[in-house]
C-alpha cells in the first residue's frame, strides 16, 4: 500500500522514469502583484493625461494593457540614463531594472528618474531577496491583470551586481516618499514610491 502510494507520488512529481512530455511546458503562472493596482491608481490621478515610463525587458502585452487604459507609454528597454528622457512623466514601471545596475550607477539613475517625473509621480520597482547572490536570469514581467503578473526568465544568466536591504532601497529613493513595500514569500520585494 505504502509502496503503491510512493510510486504514485513519484510519478506525479515526474521522476527519472517519467517521459519528458509529462512536464507541462507553458508560460509561467501569474502571481500576485499587490502594488500594481495602487501604482496605477496613483499614476492615473497625478495628471489628466498620464504618461508612463516602462523599463526592463520588453513585453508587448504590457504596452497594450497599459495603453488601453489611456496611459501614454514610453518604452525605454535599454538602460539609458534617465536624464536623457524628457520630463513630465506621471510614473515609472521599473520592474527589476535597478537590481541589474551597479549600486553607484543605480544612485545616479534614480536621481535622474526623479527629474523625469512630475510632483506626485509614482515608481514601482522589484528587488530580489536580500541574500540573492551569484548569477540569475533577467525577467520579463507580463501583466495579466491589475493584480497579477507572470514572471518569465529571459536570456542567459548574468551576475547580480548587488542586493539591497529594505533600508538601502529607501535610502536609494531618497528623493521619493515610500508609499508601500510588500515582501513576497520568495523574498522578492515590491516597492512603491512617489515623488515628494
Amino acid at each position, binding site marked *: 500500500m505504502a509502496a503503491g502510494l510512493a510510486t504514485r507520488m513519484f510519478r506525479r512529481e515526474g521522476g527519472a522514469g517519467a517521459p519528458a512530455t509529462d512536464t507541462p511546458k507553458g508560460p509561467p503562472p501569474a502571481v500576485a502583484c499587490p502594488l500594481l493596482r495602487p501604482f496605477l491608481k496613483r499614476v492615473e490621478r497625478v495628471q489628466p493625461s498620464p504618461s508612463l515610463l516602462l523599463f526592463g525587458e*520588453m513585453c508587448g502585452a504590457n504596452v497594450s494593457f497599459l495603453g488601453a487604459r*489611456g496611459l*501614454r507609454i*514610453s*518604452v525605454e528597454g535599454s538602460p539609458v540614463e534617465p536624464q536623457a528622457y524628457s520630463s513630465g512623466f506621471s510614473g515609472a514601471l521599473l520592474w527589476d531594472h535597478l537590481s541589474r545596475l551597479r549600486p553607484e550607477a543605480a544612485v545616479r539613475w534614480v536621481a535622474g528618474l526623479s527629474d523625469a517625473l512630475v510632483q506626485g509621480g509614482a515608481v514601482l520597482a522589484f528587488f530580489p531577496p536580500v541574500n540573492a547572490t551569484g548569477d540569475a536570469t533577467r525577467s520579463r514581467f507580463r501583466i495579466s491583470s491589475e493584480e497579477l503578473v507572470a514572471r518569465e526568465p529571459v536570456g542567459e544568466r548574468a551576475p547580480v551586481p548587488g542586493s539591497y536591504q529594505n533600508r538601502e532601497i529607501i535610502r536609494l529613493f531618497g528623493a521619493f516618499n515610500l508609499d508601500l513595500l510588500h515582501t513576497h514569500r520568495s523574498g522578492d520585494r515590491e516597492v512603491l514610491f512617489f515623488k515628494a
Partner: protein
Amino acid sequence: MWDKKENEKDFKPSGPPPAAPRVETPSYVPMSVPPLSASSSSAKGRAANIGTSLFIKGEVSGSEDLTVEGRVEGRIDLKDHNITIAASGRVNAEIHAKSVTVVGEVTGNINADDKVEIADTGRLTGDIHAPRVAISDGAQFRGNVDMVRDRSAAQSVAGIKERVQAQVQTHTQSQTQTASQGKAAAAQI
C-alpha cells in the same frame, strides 16, 4: 433513401478500409503571399510591393496595400490601406496608414487608424499613435505609444464620469441626511 446509400457505397474505392479517418492533403501548396513584381501592382488584390533592390527617397502615397522589402526614406501615406515592412525592409520615414505591420526595421513615427503590429523580428524606433498596438516578445521597440484615438474626447468622458460620481455622492449624502432626520422625527413622535 436506401438506394442512395447503396450508390454511395458503389463510389468507394475497392481497397482495404482506412484504420482511422484522415484529412486529405491537397496536392498543391497554397501560397499565402502572391508573387508580386517590384514595378507592377495587382489590380485584383490591390497590393503593391517595393522590392528588395529598390530605394525610394521622398514621399510614397497611394490607395492600395503596400509591402516594403527594400528601402524607403521620407514619408509614406496610405490613408485607408495597410502597409507591411517585410523582414528585408528598411524604412526611415513617417508612416500614416490604416494598419502597419513591422517585420523589418523602421525608424520614424507611425500613425495608424486601426492598428500597429511589431513582429518578433521587427525593430521600431519612433512613436506609435494607434488605437490598437500589438508588440511580439522579442521585438525591439523604443519610443512612445499613444493608444487613445482622441485624447480630448477621452478627457471629456473622464470629466463626465467625475461629475456623475460627485453628483451620486452628494445625492447619497443628502439621502442619508434625510433618513437620519426622519428617524430623529420619528423618535420625537
